[in-house]
C-alpha cells in the first residue's frame, strides 16, 4: 500500500484557484432543496427544538467526521492523479471489490443527476412563473397541485396543454449545467460557486427578514403569527427524545444534508494540493451548510405557512412532505405575501441556485473518469457526459407520472448513499486503518482537530451509519422490494427504472474495469 504523504503526482491536474472557492463549491454541493424544505419539517415533526439535541450530536458523530474522511480520501487520490472513488478505492485497497464499491461513487451521482437536473429546472420555471404571476390567481393547494401536474405534463388542463414548458426549462438548465462544466474546475465550478452561493445567502436572508416581519392576514386566528410559526418549529418536546425514531431521523437528516456518501466530495477534494488543509475545509463547508439549514431553512417556509394557514394546517403540510411544501404550499404563501412576485422569484431562484450547484457537482466524477482513465480532453469528456445525461433524463421526464423518478430517488438517492457511506467508512477505518487515516485527515490541517475524533471516526461513525442503514432497510427497503405494492399500470415503468439503474451500474463497472486497466497499461508504458 502506498505511503501517505508521498510526493505529488498531480502533474497536469486541475486545482482550485482559491480556498474560499473550494469551500463554497463543497457547500454548494451540500446546500440543496432539503435545507429549506426538509429540515424544518423534520424539526417540527420530531420534537421541535429538542430535535436539535440529537441533530447536533449526529453532526459531531457522523456528519463532520464523514466530511473529513471523504476530503482526506479525495486529497489522497488526487495526490496520485485519481479523481473518482473507483480509482481511489483501488488505490486504498488492492482487491477487485474495491473498484466496484467505488463504482457506486460514479453511479450514484450520475443517476441522481438524471432527475435532479429536471427538478432543478422546475425551480427556474417557478421563478419565472412567480415573476409573471402565472399562479397568483390559484386559491387552494388542490389548484396549485393541478397547476404543477399540468406543468409536468402529468395531466392536460387549463393551465398547460403538455410538457413543452417543462421541457424548455429542462433544456435551459441542462445547457447551463454543461456550459459550467466546460469551464473546468477553477473557471467553471469554482466561478459558479463564488457567484451563486453568496447570492443564495443574500436571497435567503432577505426572505428571512420578510418572513419575520410578516403581519397576520386579515381575519386571521390568534395562532397565525410569526411567534407561533417559530414556536411550531422550535418549541421543544423533550418526550420525543425517548423515541429511537427521532434519533434516526436526526442522523438521517445530517447524513443527507451534508451530501456525503455521493462520491462528489472525494472528486472535489482531489483538486486540493497534496499538502493543503482538508480539516478546516470540510468543517467550513459543513458549517455553511448548517447555517443555511438551521438559521435560514428553519425560518422561512414553515413559519410563513403558520402565519397564512395556522398551526393545525401547517402540521398537515409538514406531514405531507418536502415536495408538497415547496411546490404546492409555498406558491400559495408567496401569492399572499405583499411583494409576492419579487419574493417568489427570489425564493425559487434561491432553490434553483441551490440545485444548480449540486447538479454540476453530480456530473464531475464522471467527467473526471473520462478524462483520467480514458484520456479524453475536457471538452469531449463533458460533451459525452452531457449526451449520456440528456438520454438518461428522458425516461424521467416522459414517465414521471408512473413513478420513474421516485424509483431512482429511492434506490440511488437514498439506499445507494447509505450503502456507499457505510462501505467507505469501513474501508477508511478497517482497510486503510485509523492510524493512517488520522494522519491523512490531520496532514496540513489549519485547525487542531481534537484527538477524540480519532475514536469517533473509528467507532462511533461506522456504528451510527450501520444503525441508520439497518433501520432504513427494515422500515423502507424490505417493503419496497415488493412489486405487488405498486399499481399494476405502473409496474412496467418501475421495472424499466430498475433495469435502467442495473444497466447503468453494470456499464460503470465495465468502464471502470477497462479504464483502470488502460491507466495501468499506460503507466507501465511510461515506466519502460
Amino acid at each position, binding site marked *: 500500500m502506498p505511503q501517505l504523504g508521498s510526493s505529488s503526482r498531480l502533474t497536469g491536474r486541475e486545482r482550485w484557484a*482559491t*480556498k*474560499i472557492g473550494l*469551500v463554497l463549491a463543497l457547500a454548494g454541493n451540500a446546500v440543496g432543496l432539503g435545507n429549506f424544505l426538509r429540515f424544518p419539517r423534520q424539526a417540527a415533526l420530531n420534537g*421541535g*427544538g*429538542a430535535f*436539535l439535541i440529537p441533530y*447536533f450530536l449526529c453532526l459531531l458523530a457522523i456528519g463532520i467526521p464523514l466530511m473529513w474522511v471523504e476530503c482526506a480520501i479525495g486529497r489522497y487520490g488526487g495526490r496520485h492523479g485519481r479523481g473518482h472513488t473507483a480509482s481511489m478505492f483501488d488505490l486504498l485497497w488492492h482487491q477487485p471489490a474495491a473498484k466496484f464499491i467505488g463504482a457506486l461513487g460514479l453511479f450514484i451521482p450520475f443517476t441522481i443527476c438524471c432527475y435532479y437536473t429536471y427538478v432543478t429546472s422546475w425551480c427556474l420555471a417557478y421563478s419565472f412563473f412567480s415573476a409573471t404571476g402565472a399562479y397568483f390567481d390559484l386559491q387552494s393547494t388542490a389548484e396549485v397541485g393541478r397547476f404543477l401536474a399540468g406543468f409536468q405534463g402529468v395531466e392536460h388542463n387549463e393551465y398547460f396543454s403538455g410538457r413543452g414548458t417543462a421541457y424548455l426549462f429542462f433544456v435551459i438548465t441542462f445547457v447551463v449545467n454543461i456550459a459550467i462544466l466546460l469551464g473546468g474546475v477553477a473557471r467553471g465550478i469554482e466561478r459558479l460557486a463564488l457567484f451563486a452561493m453568496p447570492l443564495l445567502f443574500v436571497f435567503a436572508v432577505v426572505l428571512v427578514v420578510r418572513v419575520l416581519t410578516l403581519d397576520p392576514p386579515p381575519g386571521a386566528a390568534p395562532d397565525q403569527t410569526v*411567534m*407561533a410559526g*417559530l*414556536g411550531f418549529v*422550535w*418549541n*421543544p418536546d423533550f418526550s420525543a427524545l425517548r423515541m429511537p425514531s427521532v434519533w434516526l431521523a436526526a442522523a438521517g437528516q445530517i447524513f443527507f444534508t451534508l451530501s456525503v456518501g455521493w462520491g462528489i466530495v472525494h472528486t472535489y477534494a482531489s483538486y486540493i494540493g497534496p499538502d493543503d*488543509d482538508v480539516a*478546516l*475545509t470540510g*468543517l*467550513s463547508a459543513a*458549517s*455553511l451548510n*448548517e*447555517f443555511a439549514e*438551521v*438559521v435560514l431553512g*428553519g425560518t422561512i417556509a414553515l413559519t410563513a405557512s403558520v402565519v397564512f394557514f395556522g398551526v393545525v394546517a401547517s402540521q398537515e403540510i409538514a406531514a405531507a412532505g418536502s415536495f408538497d411544501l415547496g411546490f404546492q404550499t409555498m406558491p400559495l404563501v408567496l401569492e399572499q405575501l405583499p411583494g409576492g412576485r419579487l419574493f417568489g422569484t427570489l425564493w425559487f431562484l434561491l432553490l434553483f441556485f441551490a440545485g444548480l450547484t449540486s447538479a454540476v457537482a453530480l456530473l464531475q466524477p464522471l467527467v473526471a473518469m473520462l478524462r483520467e482513465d480514458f484520456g479524453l480532453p475536457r471538452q469531449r469528456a463533458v460533451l459525452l457526459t452531457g449526451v449520456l445525461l440528456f438520454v438518461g433524463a428522458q425516461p424521467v421526464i416522459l414517465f414521471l407520472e408512473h413513478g420513474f423518478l421516485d424509483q431512482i430517488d429511492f434506490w440511488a438517492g437514498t439506499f445507494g448513499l447509505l450503502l456507499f457511506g457505510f462501505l467507505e467508512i469501513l474501508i477508511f477505518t478497517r482497510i486503510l486503518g485509523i492510524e493512517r487515516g488520522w494522519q491523512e485527515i490531520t496532514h496540513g490541517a*489549519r*485547525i487542531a482537530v481534537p484527538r477524540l475524533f480519532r475514536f469517533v471516526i473509528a467507532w462511533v461513525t461506522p456504528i451510527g451509519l450501520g444503525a441508520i442503514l439497518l433501520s432504513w432497510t427494515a422500515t423502507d427497503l424490505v417493503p419496497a422490494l415488493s412489486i405487488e405494492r405498486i399499481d399494476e399500470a405502473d409496474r412496467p415503468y418501475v421495472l424499466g427504472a430498475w433495469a435502467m439503474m442495473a444497466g447503468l451500474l453494470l456499464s460503470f463497472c465495465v468502464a471502470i474495469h477497462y479504464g483502470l486497466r488502460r491507466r495501468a497499461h499506460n503507466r507501465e508504458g511510461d515506466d519502460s
Partner: protein
Amino acid sequence: MTVAGWIFLGCAWSLVIGLAAFCIVKTLRDD
C-alpha cells in the same frame, strides 16, 4: 413561542453562526 423555544433557537443560531463565521474568516485569511 415558549421561553424554552427561544433558548433552543438562540443556542442553535449562536452555535451555527459562530462556527460558520470562524471557519469563513479563517479560510479567507488563508487565501
